[in-house]
């Protein structure tokens, strides 16, 4: 198996060619994480700024929002850990990723043909992955520090003050990363199918992840 593919990838001939991108397990895992993240963002933002406090209404009021937010965080952490172990290998940095970054401007400007061929994930996706991973670790750590219901006694108030600041900044960042992630999925048409049906078209793969497609084809032939 080449370094650009994982197990489960299959190519289904036809018109168009259909390529398996995510297994049902991976998709379920993703959506659990995604829902958690959205709930966390909503509940977190409610506590972050008075202008969004009304969002606590979604959770049944301030007390429940406060109570439920950290528990969702725990679920997210566990769920994301699943994603991490599924995806981390193919998100390792490669030589072409630097080149891809260098041409990021072209991508935004609509000249994807000028981009280098990439594997299952391009450098942008990898940055989202690693950014999310890092931020979630920071968020869970800082979150536990300020989860006073259970952990008040373990740290000092000055530490908690720093934790709450770090938690807020990390949350802003992860929400920003999340927006990028969602936008990319919307902007790059044909992407959504990867996380809904688990499949993309061959053309999508050719256009955005050609190396991955080629490696899949090679692997298919060897089979």
């Amino acid at each position: 198996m080449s370094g650009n593919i994982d197990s489960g990838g299959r190519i289904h001939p036809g018109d168009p060619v259909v390529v398996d991108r995510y297994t049902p397990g991976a998709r379920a895992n993703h959506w659990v994480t995604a829902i958690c993240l959205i709930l966390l963002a909503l509940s977190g933002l409610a506590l972050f700024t008075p202008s969004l406090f009304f969002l606590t209404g979604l959770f049944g009021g301030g007390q429940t929002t406060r109570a439920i937010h950290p528990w969702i965080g725990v679920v997210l952490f566990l769920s994301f850990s699943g994603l991490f172990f599924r995806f981390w290998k193919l998100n390792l940095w490669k030589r072409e990723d630097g080149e891809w970054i260098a041409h990021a401007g072209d991508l935004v400007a609509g000249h994807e043909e000028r981009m280098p061929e990439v594997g299952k994930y391009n450098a942008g996706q990898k940055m989202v992955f690693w950014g999310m991973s890092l931020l979630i670790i920071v968020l869970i750590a800082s979150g536990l520090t300020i989860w006073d219901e259970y952990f008040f006694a373990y740290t000092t108030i000055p530490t908690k003050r720093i934790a709450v600041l770090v938690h807020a900044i990390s949350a802003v960042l992860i929400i920003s990363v999340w927006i990028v992630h969602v936008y990319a999925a919307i902007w790059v048409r044909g992407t959504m199918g990867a996380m809904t049906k688990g499949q993309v078209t061959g053309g999508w793969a050719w256009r955005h992840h050609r190396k991955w497609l080629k490696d899949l084809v090679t692997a298919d032939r060897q089979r």
Partner: protein
Amino acid sequence: MYPPLPNPGTGPSAPKFGEKDLVRRSASTVTPPAQRQTQVAKLIDVSKCIGCKACQSACQEWNDLREEVGTNDGTYNNAHDLTPASLTVMRFTEWDNPETGNLEWLIRKDGCMHCEDPGCLKSCPAPGAIVQYSNGIVDFDHTKCIGCGYCVKGCPFNIPRISKVDNKAYKCTLCSDRVAVGQGPACQKACPTQAIVFGPKDDMKKWADGRIADLKSRGYKTAGLYDPQGVGGTHVMYVLQHADKPEIYAGLPNNPRISPVVELWKGLTKYTGLAVMGAVAAFGFVHHMIAGPNKVSAEDEANASKLAGGKS
């Protein structure tokens, strides 16, 4: 003796201040009242305090709270710390005065200081859960408290405590319910030595001047008033025998202020954070408008088909 407040009548009386007198309201804005109430203050004269804990007892009685029967930890501090049931505690410190060689037993009544610039209120995310009246009293509204503990982090004096029972924040209210009908706080009423006096803040400062002069005449050269300006002054003030070293009184902060971390969190972070998230979202929106969707072309499909087709 500071003239005690007369006992109230037995009939009902309308509160002298309320919602209309708010000058600050957590996580929301208020229209400042046209007329400010007289600024009040509780003055705790540490040099007159005998540490009898009558104030702790009165506080429990008036607020209908009951502290648990704890243990002895090798000191006279019971409860050992502020709790949701002990909104005030005596903190006993045995201090050897290096100048005189004499032992001094410093007994400080700890509790909410009712800052003019309250860090708890600044930190609170729940609209109206913490309010400040124009007379200076900082009060918690438990119907609105969400129990997040941000007030604990915002407070420069480490005062609020979250109840394990109802997950709400508790601290001294300066007996706002009593003050509202013209009474002093329960602790002040119970104090047998007038170590606690209550009244207009200006009067309290004048009263403190007299006490400080007395202390100076008895050799306490650095006696003074604790009304820290870092938090805009407080509505609970201390007369200290050694006002130059408040920290010897069981860690009373020297020049307290709202932590810069909290200021950063509740200030720059909030606004910048919203801006960043907004900007990122806006960028995507604008980009999509300009660049349009990134679509797979028929050519791409053909290329893929060709690549895949090679296998069959």
